[in-house]
């Protein structure tokens, strides 16, 4: 099996790695680059725990090959805060207790970030459908939706 | 002497009785005497029996005193999720 050399940008940093042709971007992030914020909940694109933003598009990193990241921009949960300054979504998730076990949280944060980038004033229904690709088994989604609403308010005000 | 009520299945293991009068000051003594008087109950005790004293369920506090006028009810020891 021939390894593929990849040059890409992750959270603004240039990164190079060698991966196998069938290795997913999720595996590369977690196992080669130590970026374990993206989680594997299913490996089949059904849970959204591995969500990342690839060239401005929300994707499941389990459904992207590591080789495909060549020359592209990848954003993960590790890149959301700036130093000690949390992203408004991160802050609001904490304040609203929008997480219990927290395994789905990185995926939700990334999906919500993408949602608000495209729609800064979503309705509750738009938030619910916008986040339907992310499964949470703990919260019943109530506090997640409220946190996203509150973060959207905060970001519009800023 | 306290009156102890057994749940249905335990009653069968004790020979078909649902109520027993036992001289016991605490849960530990209760279990010891139950096993002495009804050897068929030993496996049940080993697997775990919970003791309800006036409606409060005790699973592990074998030192718990058994008040004379209390309602003592034996129950299966359960698992939660």
């Amino acid at each position: 099996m021939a390894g593929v050399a990849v040059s890409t940008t992750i959270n603004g940093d240039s990164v190079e790695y060698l991966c196998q042709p069938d290795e997913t971007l999720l595996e590369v992030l977690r196992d080669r680059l130590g970026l374990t914020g993206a989680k594997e909940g299913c490996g089949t694109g059904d849970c959204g725990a591995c969500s990342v933003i690839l060239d401005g598009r929300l994707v499941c990193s389990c459904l992207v090959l590591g080789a495909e990241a060549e020359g592209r921009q990848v954003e993960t949960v590790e890149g959301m805060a700036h130093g000690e300054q949390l992203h408004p979504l991160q802050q609001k998730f904490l304040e609203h207790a929008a997480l219990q076990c927290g395994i789905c949280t990185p995926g939700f944060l990334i999906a919500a970030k993408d949602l608000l980038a495209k729609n800064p004033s979503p309705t509750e229904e738009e938030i619910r459908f916008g986040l339907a690709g992310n499964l949470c088994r703990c919260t019943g989604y109530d506090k997640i939706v409220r946190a996203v609403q509150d973060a959207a308010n905060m970001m519009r005000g800023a | 002497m306290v009156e102890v009520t057994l749940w249905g299945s335990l009653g069968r293991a004790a020979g078909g009785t649902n109520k027993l009068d036992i001289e016991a000051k605490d849960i530990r003594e209760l279990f010891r005497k139950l096993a002495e008087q009804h050897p068929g109950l030993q496996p049940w005790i080993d697997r775990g029996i919970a003791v309800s004293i006036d409606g409060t369920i005790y699973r592990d506090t074998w030192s718990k005193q058994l008040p004379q006028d209390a309602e003592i009810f034996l129950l299966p020891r359960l698992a939660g999720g």
Partner: protein
Amino acid sequence: MRYIRPLSIEDAVGTLASSARTAAILAGGSDLLVRMKGGFVEPDLIVDIKAVPGLGDVQETAEGFRIGAAVPSAVLGENTALKKAWPGVVEAARLIGSKQVQGRCTIVGNLCNASPAADSVPAMVAAGAKAVIVGPSGRRTIPVETVPAGPGRTTLAKGEIIEAILLDKRPPHAGDAYLRFIPRTEMDIAVVSAGVNLTLDEKGAVKTARVALGAAAPTVLLVEEAAEVLVGSKLDEATLERLAKVCSGACRPIDDKRGTIEFRRKVAGVLARRAAVTAYQRAGGK
């Protein structure tokens, strides 16, 4: 296993045609990677077609629209002209998977995966969409309904790639719609689905109609009798009743983990009826 990213369609076709063993085309990967993960396929060669010029574009031409094989559904949803002309096709494409999957999945992939439950296919079939196929012996254009041969099988020959989907330019008074039934509100595979495409005459009567059903047979079903029911009508109650009945009757569904034969039959008719009403309204009918 090798991963290659050809820069021309000829290279892609050449590589696929000359590959001695199993090769897989990668566009969005939302089916391929799942099948690889499950161990159902182990390709020796992965041909990523996203770097081929033109495959990532939606072009509006004199004849209509040309949708490249590597265009993700999310991009279709952002194309105002396409959405206006073919709202049913776009809404079908936008129902495939989650937001995350939308950023990757393509209607060509959806077609080539050859699932009878594929969301975009009944809408494309109803729309009379055509597939442009490139292969070792050149290009050919065929109706999309002739691509799937059965669950998981297509009529494509070795080395052939679908390069683009063609949708006709819309005449006035035309509308299409797609509806599917899923148990949840998102994330499910269609239990049964219906696509309806109508054109109306000046008086608002149906001039032409195409009705397609998904997850109702081994491949997507084009129900000609249903179209006949609609033509000439203004979708009065009796016509809609007959449409539902004909569609239910045309189904050859199975019992599986997603639904029963009875359910699929009944709901195929319900969805066809509802989709027809929406398509009619979109075509300007009242």
